[in-house]
């Protein structure tokens, strides 16, 4: 039996207060958004699965072919190449964004002068439409006439005779650089918001106990920030793996296939080759991989990091 002093959860109260005949009311309220989700998300997803088991070329869906599309895809070196490029992209870009974002957030949290001006400025890259980011960096790094190519790379003889986006050796790293430029400030601001929300009590207690800054960071800040770090890290990981717009604008997946991620390949298979069956199989495979990864990550984050 609950004591008088124990608060009654708000949801329970609301449910108890609803007359039996009005118990459908909450469902009515969420129905429009659920309906929208089903229409724009679930149905297309189920249709993608359906297409992946059919011969679908040039927009015409014909025979059921079982796992043939999957078999073709899994035997295609180009598919594995795209996975390895996306993996390289993600495993370089996201940790760097994460580390720089966290360092930046800790610096911002020190009451640096001009913070109120700096914060809106930091939002700018993340606020830019991907096409703007692409065009901006095209202008910056275009071979021979790009602003940075001409004024920095050419002037100081860095990578002579090379155009970064046209080089199979550098194009992917240039794209990673652009991604880091765009998303580090977002990570920084997300982490900064988290730091601002931390309670001051533990820090005061630690200060009384004589803890230094590093000890406070490792024993207080990091454990308390872990849920947020895990969520932001996961979201960024998913987003980075799906990157499409900037690559499409800056390199189109080339030179050769050196920057062709699964999203670029899927787009090509769908809208250039009109090979919709195989493109659907690719989308489903990527989704399965993500689902498995996110499930494992969720379990680990929940049990070991106390996140979620």
């Amino acid at each position, binding site marked *: 039996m609950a004591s008088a002093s124990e608060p009654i959860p708000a949801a329970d109260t609301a449910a108890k207060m609803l007359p039996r005949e009005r118990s459908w009311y909450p469902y009515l309220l969420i129905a429009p958004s659920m309906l929208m989700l089903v229409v724009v998300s679930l149905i297309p997803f189920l249709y993608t699965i359906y297409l992946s088991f059919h011969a679908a*070329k*040039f*927009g*015409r869906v014909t025979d059921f072919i079982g796992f043939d599309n999957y078999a073709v895809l899994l035997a295609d070196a180009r598919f594995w190449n795209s996975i390895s490029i996306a993996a390289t992209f993600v495993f370089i870009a996201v940790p760097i964004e994460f580390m720089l974002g966290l360092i930046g957030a800790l610096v911002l949290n020190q009451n640096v002068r001009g913070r109120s001006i700096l914060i809106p400025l930091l939002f700018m890259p993340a606020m830019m439409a991907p096409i703007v980011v692409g065009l901006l960096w095209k202008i910056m790094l*275009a*071979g*021979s*006439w790009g602003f940075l*190519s*001409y004024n920095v790379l050419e002037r100081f003889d860095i990578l002579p*005779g*090379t*155009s970064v*986006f*046209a*080089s*199979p050796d550098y194009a992917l790293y240039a794209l990673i650089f652009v991604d880091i430029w765009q998303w580090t400030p977002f990570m920084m601001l997300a982490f900064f918001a988290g730091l601002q929300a931390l309670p001051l009590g533990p820090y005061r207690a630690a200060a009384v106990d004589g803890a230094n800054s590093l000890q406070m960071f490792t024993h207080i800040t990091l454990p308390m920030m872990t849920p947020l770090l895990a969520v932001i890290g996961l979201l960024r990981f998913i987003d980075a793996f799906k990157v499409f717009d900037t690559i499409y604008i800056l*390199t*189109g*997946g*080339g*030179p*050769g*296939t050196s920057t062709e991620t699964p999203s670029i390949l899927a787009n*090509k298979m769908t*809208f*250039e*080759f*009109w*090979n919709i069956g195989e493109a659907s199989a690719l989308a489903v495979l990527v989704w399965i991989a993500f689902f498995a990864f996110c499930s494992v990550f969720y379990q680990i984050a929940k049990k070991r990091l106390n996140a979620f």
Partner: protein
Amino acid sequence: MKRLHRCFAAALAASTVLLAPLAPARAQDSFYAEAAKPYKGTTIRVLDEITPLQETLSKIIPEFEKETGIKVEWELLNHFEVINKGQADMLSGRGYYDAIMLHGFQLGPMISAGAIMPLNDLVANPKLSNPNLGTSDFIQNPFKTAAFVGDKQYSFINWNYNQIYWTRADLLGNADEKAAFKAKYGYDLAPAETMEQMRDIAQFFTRKKGEKLAGKPLESDFYGIVLEGIKGGSTFPTLWNNFVKNYGGNLIDAEGRPTFDTPETVAALKMWRELWTYAPPGIAEYSLVDVPTVMGNGIAAQSIAWSDFVLGVDKKGVSPYAGQFVYGPIPIKAGSKERFAEAEPSVTVISAASKNPEPTFIFLQWLADRKQQDKLIALGEGGVPIRESSWALPAITGAANKTLYTAMKSTLDVAEAKPKMPKFYEIYDVMSGIAQEVGLGKLSPEEGAKKGQAELLKLCTKCLL
């Protein structure tokens, strides 16, 4: 009285002679008005791509509406959008557009998908088919190879996009440069006629910042050549038709079997690779739009480019080098007897899902009619002819730079639409990647030929429709 009769007869005879040339024109005019009567008030939607040629054409479309009472919603989109949007509409079966402009290379996949309406029944219908259209006046090679598959006709011909050789008369005519070139290579400096000469000129003019070019110190690096090198675009067709075929190789044989891995292809790829070393470092990013921009800005000595873009650049107020350019036929391999050149004969087709095929067919004939074509070239003060008779028009014979039209004609004389290959896009994509990798030195020419052949075989063993 007899005298009066004689005078009247003479006047009648004179007026008949004087008005005779106008009579066929009037008959033609009345054909479209007459044929369109049942369709008066109908609206047709047409999708075309935007180039200076289509912009000029836009000015005369209202005349069709006035003449026939058929309304035309004329939409112009850029090259890539017109391909994506046009194909999506055709393949979806929605039929929003009645007619869609297709490049020659799109025909294979679209015909194999059944997305294009054959015109045979419409051509055979005397109420709809203009007997005076004069299809024999169309430049035959591009028309026949683009519009027909076997005995089925899918279109007329609308745009004869073609590539030409482009260089700088001021540099090639400079006395110091000429002397230095002769001393180094042993022959006179002139617009290249062979690939080997083009390579020599490219090598000769590739210079670093600070070196002299035509007596003046360079403020930035100067390049011997600029070519299209972007993934996709027309990079691979440029390599295929101008290089591989001129070296005696090909992508497929007459039966459609892949035949890329030959010594001729390897030799062509070697030249391709060598030329890339004299090009700006960003060549692998250069599209068909960037190439004329580089030439117009005076960054390179020579190029192979699409002539319709040249028309937009070699103009006073657009390029500081306007009037100093000179053009020529696509260079061929030294000693080669046969000549090939990249062209993209393009057509406007009726979508299989069109709800208005008859008025659309009338419109397509009207577009390709000599009267409209003459007007198009006169309004554009030049253009890219689709009719043999257009070469004699004053806007072309009196053009400031006659070498441009000589070069265009030389390409169009041998121009062919791409073979109709259902898997053209896959082939195009993988081969343009190989063209880049060979150009950048990531694959040797031998490896490129071998990889190209292997990739082709993965896609098709018989690649034609």
